Protein backbone atom coordinates (compact mmCIF):
# COMPACT_ATOMS: atom_id res chain seq x y z
CA UNK A 1 0.00 0.00 0.00
CA UNK A 2 1.31 3.43 -0.80
CA UNK A 3 0.23 6.93 0.17
CA UNK A 4 2.58 8.71 -2.18
CA UNK A 5 1.37 11.42 -4.55
CA UNK A 6 4.05 10.86 -7.19
CA UNK A 7 5.27 7.36 -7.81
CA UNK A 8 8.04 7.93 -10.31
CA UNK A 9 9.84 10.86 -11.83
CA UNK A 10 10.89 9.51 -15.21
CA UNK A 11 10.75 12.94 -16.79
CA UNK A 12 13.71 14.05 -14.66
CA UNK A 13 16.14 11.82 -16.53
CA UNK A 14 14.91 13.20 -19.84
CA UNK A 15 15.33 16.76 -18.56
CA UNK A 16 18.84 15.97 -17.33
CA UNK A 17 19.86 14.59 -20.72
CA UNK A 18 18.39 17.59 -22.50
CA UNK A 19 20.08 20.02 -20.12
CA UNK A 20 23.42 18.29 -20.52
CA UNK A 21 23.06 18.81 -24.27
CA UNK A 22 22.41 22.51 -23.69
CA UNK A 23 25.39 22.79 -21.36
CA UNK A 24 27.62 21.21 -24.02
CA UNK A 25 26.31 23.84 -26.45
CA UNK A 26 26.96 26.62 -23.91
CA UNK A 27 30.54 25.39 -23.61
CA UNK A 28 30.77 25.98 -27.35
CA UNK A 29 29.51 29.56 -26.71
CA UNK A 30 26.01 28.97 -28.08
CA UNK A 31 24.08 31.96 -26.77
CA UNK A 32 20.72 30.51 -27.74
CA UNK A 33 21.36 27.40 -25.66
CA UNK A 34 22.36 29.68 -22.80
CA UNK A 35 19.18 31.68 -23.16
CA UNK A 36 17.10 28.51 -22.95
CA UNK A 37 18.79 27.53 -19.71
CA UNK A 38 18.58 31.11 -18.45
CA UNK A 39 14.85 31.30 -19.02
CA UNK A 40 14.35 27.87 -17.47
CA UNK A 41 16.32 28.56 -14.31
CA UNK A 42 16.00 32.28 -13.73
CA UNK A 43 12.48 32.12 -12.22
CA UNK A 44 13.35 29.12 -10.05
CA UNK A 45 16.59 30.66 -8.83
CA UNK A 46 14.87 33.99 -8.21
CA UNK A 47 12.30 32.31 -6.04
CA UNK A 48 14.96 30.39 -4.12
CA UNK A 49 17.26 33.39 -3.68
CA UNK A 50 14.22 35.40 -2.58
CA UNK A 51 14.01 33.17 0.48
CA UNK A 52 17.55 34.20 1.43
CA UNK A 53 17.76 37.88 0.50
CA UNK A 54 14.83 40.29 0.37
CA UNK A 55 15.76 43.15 -1.91
CA UNK A 56 14.49 42.47 -5.46
CA UNK A 57 17.56 44.21 -6.86
CA UNK A 58 19.81 41.93 -4.83
CA UNK A 59 17.84 38.87 -5.90
CA UNK A 60 18.31 39.83 -9.53
CA UNK A 61 22.01 40.47 -8.99
CA UNK A 62 22.59 37.11 -7.31
CA UNK A 63 20.58 35.21 -9.93
CA UNK A 64 22.36 36.88 -12.82
CA UNK A 65 25.76 36.34 -11.19
CA UNK A 66 24.85 32.67 -10.77
CA UNK A 67 23.80 32.23 -14.36
CA UNK A 68 26.85 34.16 -15.50
CA UNK A 69 28.89 31.34 -13.92
CA UNK A 70 27.03 28.93 -16.19
CA UNK A 71 28.00 30.99 -19.22
CA UNK A 72 31.59 31.50 -18.20
CA UNK A 73 32.37 28.19 -16.54
CA UNK A 74 30.05 25.62 -18.12
CA UNK A 75 33.10 23.38 -18.39
CA UNK A 76 33.15 23.11 -14.60
CA UNK A 77 29.82 21.32 -14.69
CA UNK A 78 30.76 17.68 -15.14
CA UNK A 79 27.34 16.06 -14.75
CA UNK A 80 28.33 14.50 -11.43
CA UNK A 81 25.25 16.17 -9.98
CA UNK A 82 22.10 17.47 -11.62
CA UNK A 83 22.41 20.90 -13.26
CA UNK A 84 19.75 22.22 -10.89
CA UNK A 85 21.79 21.10 -7.87
CA UNK A 86 24.92 22.73 -9.27
CA UNK A 87 23.17 26.03 -9.99
CA UNK A 88 21.21 26.15 -6.73
CA UNK A 89 24.42 25.50 -4.77
CA UNK A 90 26.17 28.37 -6.55
CA UNK A 91 23.16 30.61 -5.96
CA UNK A 92 23.08 29.68 -2.29
CA UNK A 93 26.72 30.59 -1.74
CA UNK A 94 26.33 33.87 -3.62
CA UNK A 95 23.12 34.73 -1.75
CA UNK A 96 24.75 34.09 1.64
CA UNK A 97 27.67 36.32 0.68
CA UNK A 98 25.28 39.02 -0.58
CA UNK A 99 23.23 38.78 2.60
CA UNK A 100 26.32 39.23 4.74
CA UNK A 101 27.44 42.13 2.61
CA UNK A 102 24.09 43.91 2.90
CA UNK A 103 23.30 42.75 6.41
CA UNK A 104 19.98 44.14 7.63
CA UNK A 105 19.39 42.94 11.19
CA UNK A 106 15.71 43.79 11.24
CA UNK A 107 15.04 42.61 7.70
CA UNK A 108 12.61 39.97 8.86
CA UNK A 109 10.73 42.56 10.95
CA UNK A 110 10.62 44.91 8.02
CA UNK A 111 9.03 42.21 5.89
CA UNK A 112 6.54 41.41 8.62
CA UNK A 113 5.61 45.08 8.77
CA UNK A 114 4.87 45.07 5.05
CA UNK A 115 2.50 42.14 5.32
CA UNK A 116 -1.10 42.72 6.37
CA UNK A 117 -1.42 42.03 10.05
CA UNK A 118 -4.30 41.47 12.46
CA UNK A 119 -6.38 44.11 10.72
CA UNK A 120 -6.97 41.52 8.04
CA UNK A 121 -8.42 39.10 10.56
CA UNK A 122 -11.93 40.45 10.00
CA UNK A 123 -11.71 39.74 6.31
CA UNK A 124 -13.55 36.69 5.08
CA UNK A 125 -11.47 33.56 4.95
CA UNK A 126 -10.02 33.45 1.50
CA UNK A 127 -7.12 32.19 -0.49
CA UNK A 128 -5.50 35.61 -0.15
CA UNK A 129 -5.76 35.52 3.60
CA UNK A 130 -4.30 32.02 3.71
CA UNK A 131 -1.44 33.18 1.54
CA UNK A 132 -0.80 36.24 3.67
CA UNK A 133 -0.83 34.19 6.85
CA UNK A 134 1.61 31.73 5.35
CA UNK A 135 3.86 34.53 4.11
CA UNK A 136 3.94 35.98 7.61
CA UNK A 137 4.69 32.57 9.05
CA UNK A 138 7.47 32.02 6.49
CA UNK A 139 8.93 35.44 7.31
CA UNK A 140 9.22 34.28 10.91
CA UNK A 141 11.56 31.46 9.92
CA UNK A 142 15.32 31.83 9.66
CA UNK A 143 16.58 32.19 6.09
CA UNK A 144 18.09 28.70 6.13
CA UNK A 145 14.85 27.12 7.36
CA UNK A 146 12.89 29.09 4.77
CA UNK A 147 15.26 27.89 2.07
CA UNK A 148 14.75 24.23 3.04
CA UNK A 149 10.97 24.65 3.01
CA UNK A 150 11.07 26.25 -0.42
CA UNK A 151 13.50 23.72 -1.90
CA UNK A 152 11.36 20.88 -0.57
CA UNK A 153 7.84 22.08 -1.21
CA UNK A 154 8.15 24.41 -4.19
CA UNK A 155 11.11 23.00 -6.09
CA UNK A 156 10.37 19.45 -4.90
CA UNK A 157 14.03 18.61 -4.45
CA UNK A 158 15.08 15.54 -2.44
CA UNK A 159 16.87 15.72 0.90
CA UNK A 160 20.24 14.55 -0.41
CA UNK A 161 20.28 17.18 -3.15
CA UNK A 162 19.22 19.87 -0.69
CA UNK A 163 22.08 18.84 1.59
CA UNK A 164 24.42 19.18 -1.38
CA UNK A 165 23.03 22.62 -2.25
CA UNK A 166 23.28 23.97 1.29
CA UNK A 167 26.55 22.16 2.08
CA UNK A 168 25.22 20.50 5.22
CA UNK A 169 24.45 16.93 6.39
CA UNK A 170 21.25 15.23 5.23
CA UNK A 171 20.04 14.92 8.83
CA UNK A 172 20.36 18.69 9.21
CA UNK A 173 18.08 19.17 6.21
CA UNK A 174 15.48 16.84 7.68
CA UNK A 175 15.55 18.39 11.15
CA UNK A 176 15.45 21.93 9.72
CA UNK A 177 12.41 20.93 7.71
CA UNK A 178 10.83 19.30 10.74
CA UNK A 179 11.20 22.41 12.89
CA UNK A 180 10.12 24.68 10.05
CA UNK A 181 6.96 22.62 9.52
CA UNK A 182 6.20 22.77 13.20
CA UNK A 183 6.68 26.54 13.24
CA UNK A 184 4.53 27.08 10.15
CA UNK A 185 1.71 24.95 11.41
CA UNK A 186 1.74 26.58 14.85
CA UNK A 187 1.77 30.00 13.25
CA UNK A 188 -1.10 29.08 10.94
CA UNK A 189 -3.21 27.11 13.38
CA UNK A 190 -4.57 30.09 15.34
CA UNK A 191 -5.72 31.93 12.28
CA UNK A 192 -6.74 29.04 10.11
CA UNK A 193 -7.76 26.21 12.37
CA UNK A 194 -9.65 24.40 9.66
CA UNK A 195 -6.75 24.75 7.25
CA UNK A 196 -4.34 22.80 9.45
Amino acid at each position, binding site marked *: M*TYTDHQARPTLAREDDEEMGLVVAVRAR*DLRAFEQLYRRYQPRLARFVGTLVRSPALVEEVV*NDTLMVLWQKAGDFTGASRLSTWLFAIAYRKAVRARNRHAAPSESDAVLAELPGDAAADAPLSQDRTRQALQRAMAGLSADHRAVVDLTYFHEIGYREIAEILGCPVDTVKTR*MFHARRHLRRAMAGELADWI
Partner: protein
Amino acid sequence: MGELLHLRGDPHEATMLLLPWYVTGAIEPGDRLLVDAHLAGCEECRGELAAERRLHAAVAGLPAPSVTGWDRMVADLAQPDETPRLPNRFLRRAGWMLAAQAAVLVLGVGVVLHLQRQASSPVAPEPYHALGSPQQAPAGNILVMFAPDTREPALRKAIEASGARLVDGPTAAGAYLLAIAPNERAAALARLRAEAGVTLAQPVDPAP
Protein backbone atom coordinates in the same frame (compact mmCIF):
# COMPACT_ATOMS: atom_id res chain seq x y z
CA MET B 1 3.29 17.29 15.23
CA GLY B 2 5.16 15.48 17.99
CA GLU B 3 8.46 16.44 19.51
CA LEU B 4 11.60 15.10 17.89
CA LEU B 5 13.68 13.02 20.28
CA HIS B 6 16.01 10.88 18.18
CA LEU B 7 17.12 10.85 14.59
CA ARG B 8 17.61 7.16 13.96
CA GLY B 9 16.35 3.79 14.99
CA ASP B 10 12.69 4.71 15.40
CA PRO B 11 10.46 4.25 12.34
CA HIS B 12 7.87 6.69 13.74
CA GLU B 13 10.37 9.51 14.01
CA ALA B 14 12.00 8.56 10.73
CA THR B 15 8.57 8.77 9.10
CA MET B 16 7.86 12.15 10.72
CA LEU B 17 11.12 13.47 9.28
CA LEU B 18 10.57 12.01 5.82
CA LEU B 19 6.91 12.99 5.27
CA PRO B 20 7.60 16.18 3.25
CA TRP B 21 9.58 14.24 0.65
CA TYR B 22 7.10 11.41 0.72
CA VAL B 23 4.46 13.99 -0.19
CA THR B 24 6.46 15.42 -3.10
CA GLY B 25 7.75 12.05 -4.29
CA ALA B 26 11.40 13.15 -3.99
CA ILE B 27 12.17 10.28 -1.63
CA GLU B 28 14.52 7.35 -2.00
CA PRO B 29 12.91 3.96 -2.67
CA GLY B 30 14.05 2.40 0.60
CA ASP B 31 12.78 5.35 2.60
CA ARG B 32 9.47 5.26 0.74
CA LEU B 33 9.06 1.62 1.75
CA LEU B 34 9.83 2.54 5.34
CA VAL B 35 7.19 5.28 5.34
CA ASP B 36 4.64 3.08 3.56
CA ALA B 37 5.15 0.33 6.10
CA HIS B 38 4.84 2.70 9.05
CA LEU B 39 1.85 4.65 7.74
CA ALA B 40 -0.16 1.46 7.36
CA GLY B 41 -0.17 1.04 11.14
CA CYS B 42 0.11 4.61 12.49
CA GLU B 43 -2.97 6.79 12.53
CA GLU B 44 -1.05 9.76 13.91
CA CYS B 45 1.33 9.74 10.97
CA ARG B 46 -1.54 9.40 8.51
CA GLY B 47 -3.00 12.57 10.05
CA GLU B 48 0.38 14.26 9.70
CA LEU B 49 0.51 13.21 6.08
CA ALA B 50 -2.82 14.91 5.35
CA ALA B 51 -1.61 18.13 7.02
CA GLU B 52 1.68 17.96 5.13
CA ARG B 53 -0.16 17.74 1.83
CA ARG B 54 -2.05 20.94 2.65
CA LEU B 55 1.15 22.69 3.69
CA HIS B 56 2.87 21.52 0.49
CA ALA B 57 0.05 22.91 -1.65
CA ALA B 58 0.05 26.22 0.23
CA VAL B 59 3.82 26.75 0.02
CA ALA B 60 3.92 25.75 -3.64
CA GLY B 61 1.16 28.30 -4.30
CA LEU B 62 3.03 31.26 -2.80
CA PRO B 63 3.83 33.89 -5.41
CA ALA B 64 7.43 34.20 -6.55
CA PRO B 65 9.20 37.55 -6.81
CA SER B 66 8.94 38.97 -10.29
CA VAL B 67 12.39 39.45 -11.70
CA THR B 68 13.32 40.31 -15.24
CA GLY B 69 16.92 39.74 -15.97
CA TRP B 70 17.65 38.61 -19.48
CA ASP B 71 18.10 42.12 -20.86
CA ARG B 72 20.49 42.91 -18.05
CA MET B 73 22.28 39.63 -18.62
CA VAL B 74 22.78 40.47 -22.27
CA ALA B 75 24.10 43.86 -21.25
CA ASP B 76 26.45 42.18 -18.77
CA LEU B 77 27.65 39.82 -21.46
CA ALA B 78 28.46 42.82 -23.60
CA GLN B 79 30.70 44.28 -20.91
CA PRO B 80 34.38 43.59 -21.49
CA ASP B 81 36.19 41.75 -18.74
CA GLU B 82 39.06 39.38 -18.33
CA THR B 83 37.18 36.31 -19.48
CA PRO B 84 36.67 35.56 -23.15
CA ARG B 85 33.16 36.33 -24.30
CA LEU B 86 31.33 36.94 -27.49
CA PRO B 87 32.48 40.05 -29.40
CA ASN B 88 30.78 43.15 -28.02
CA ARG B 89 29.90 44.64 -31.38
CA PHE B 90 27.46 41.83 -32.17
CA LEU B 91 25.63 42.09 -28.89
CA ARG B 92 25.36 45.86 -29.08
CA ARG B 93 24.23 45.93 -32.69
CA ALA B 94 21.10 43.87 -32.88
CA GLY B 95 20.05 42.30 -29.61
CA TRP B 96 20.71 38.84 -28.42
CA MET B 97 19.13 36.88 -31.25
CA LEU B 98 21.04 38.56 -34.02
CA ALA B 99 24.07 38.52 -31.81
CA ALA B 100 23.77 34.80 -31.35
CA GLN B 101 23.33 34.26 -35.06
CA ALA B 102 26.22 36.50 -35.90
CA ALA B 103 28.38 34.88 -33.29
CA VAL B 104 27.51 31.47 -34.66
CA LEU B 105 28.49 32.65 -38.13
CA VAL B 106 31.77 34.08 -36.93
CA LEU B 107 32.60 31.22 -34.67
CA GLY B 108 30.88 28.57 -36.73
CA VAL B 109 33.90 27.16 -38.49
CA GLY B 110 35.91 27.01 -35.32
CA VAL B 111 33.08 25.49 -33.31
CA VAL B 112 32.32 22.89 -35.98
CA LEU B 113 35.97 21.94 -36.21
CA HIS B 114 36.16 21.79 -32.45
CA LEU B 115 33.08 19.60 -32.21
CA GLN B 116 34.36 17.38 -34.99
CA ARG B 117 37.61 16.93 -33.11
CA GLN B 118 35.61 16.05 -30.02
CA ALA B 119 33.44 13.62 -31.95
CA SER B 120 36.40 11.88 -33.50
CA SER B 121 38.43 11.82 -30.31
CA PRO B 122 39.72 8.32 -29.64
CA VAL B 123 39.07 8.84 -25.96
CA ALA B 124 35.39 8.15 -25.45
CA PRO B 125 33.80 10.54 -22.96
CA GLU B 126 32.40 9.17 -19.77
CA PRO B 127 28.76 8.31 -20.36
CA TYR B 128 26.54 10.90 -18.76
CA HIS B 129 24.56 9.39 -16.00
CA ALA B 130 21.78 11.55 -14.67
CA LEU B 131 21.33 11.35 -10.95
CA GLY B 132 17.66 12.02 -11.52
CA SER B 133 17.28 8.83 -13.54
CA PRO B 134 14.35 6.85 -12.22
CA GLN B 135 15.58 4.60 -9.50
CA GLN B 136 14.38 1.07 -9.54
CA ALA B 137 12.96 0.01 -6.22
CA PRO B 138 15.33 -2.59 -4.84
CA ALA B 139 13.82 -6.06 -4.82
CA GLY B 140 13.72 -6.53 -1.07
CA ASN B 141 10.86 -7.75 1.03
CA ILE B 142 11.99 -7.04 4.59
CA LEU B 143 12.69 -3.63 6.08
CA VAL B 144 14.86 -3.56 9.18
CA MET B 145 16.13 -0.80 11.47
CA PHE B 146 18.67 -1.01 14.26
CA ALA B 147 19.12 0.92 17.49
CA PRO B 148 21.47 3.88 17.00
CA ASP B 149 24.22 2.34 19.14
CA THR B 150 24.29 -0.96 17.25
CA ARG B 151 27.81 -1.72 16.12
CA GLU B 152 28.61 -2.99 12.65
CA PRO B 153 29.56 -6.61 13.67
CA ALA B 154 26.27 -7.03 15.55
CA LEU B 155 24.36 -5.59 12.63
CA ARG B 156 26.08 -7.95 10.18
CA LYS B 157 25.55 -10.93 12.48
CA ALA B 158 21.83 -10.18 12.80
CA ILE B 159 21.40 -9.96 9.04
CA GLU B 160 23.41 -13.12 8.41
CA ALA B 161 21.54 -15.03 11.13
CA SER B 162 18.22 -14.08 9.56
CA GLY B 163 19.17 -15.91 6.37
CA ALA B 164 18.17 -12.90 4.28
CA ARG B 165 20.36 -10.98 1.87
CA LEU B 166 21.10 -7.26 2.20
CA VAL B 167 19.96 -5.48 -0.98
CA ASP B 168 19.91 -1.83 0.03
CA GLY B 169 20.79 0.51 2.85
CA PRO B 170 21.41 2.20 4.99
CA THR B 171 18.85 4.61 3.60
CA ALA B 172 18.98 8.26 4.62
CA ALA B 173 16.70 7.28 7.50
CA GLY B 174 19.02 4.45 8.55
CA ALA B 175 16.87 1.52 7.37
CA TYR B 176 18.08 -1.58 5.54
CA LEU B 177 16.25 -3.59 2.92
CA LEU B 178 16.69 -7.37 2.92
CA ALA B 179 15.56 -10.03 0.46
CA ILE B 180 14.54 -13.59 1.19
CA ALA B 181 12.36 -16.25 -0.42
CA PRO B 182 8.71 -15.53 0.39
CA ASN B 183 8.17 -18.85 2.17
CA GLU B 184 11.11 -18.15 4.48
CA ARG B 185 10.22 -14.55 5.28
CA ALA B 186 8.15 -15.16 8.41
CA ALA B 187 10.93 -17.18 10.03
CA ALA B 188 13.53 -14.56 9.08
CA LEU B 189 11.37 -11.80 10.57
CA ALA B 190 11.07 -13.77 13.80
CA ARG B 191 14.83 -14.24 13.95
CA LEU B 192 15.44 -10.55 13.31
CA ARG B 193 12.95 -9.45 15.95
CA ALA B 194 14.71 -11.68 18.47
CA GLU B 195 17.98 -9.77 17.96
CA ALA B 196 18.69 -7.23 20.69
CA GLY B 197 19.60 -4.29 18.43
CA VAL B 198 16.67 -4.57 16.01
CA THR B 199 14.06 -1.82 16.48
CA LEU B 200 11.99 -2.64 13.40
CA ALA B 201 11.61 -5.78 11.27
CA GLN B 202 8.77 -5.24 8.88
CA PRO B 203 7.59 -7.21 5.83
CA VAL B 204 7.30 -4.98 2.76
CA ASP B 205 5.69 -5.76 -0.55
CA PRO B 206 6.47 -2.85 -2.81
CA ALA B 207 3.97 -2.02 -5.50
CA PRO B 208 5.07 -3.34 -8.90
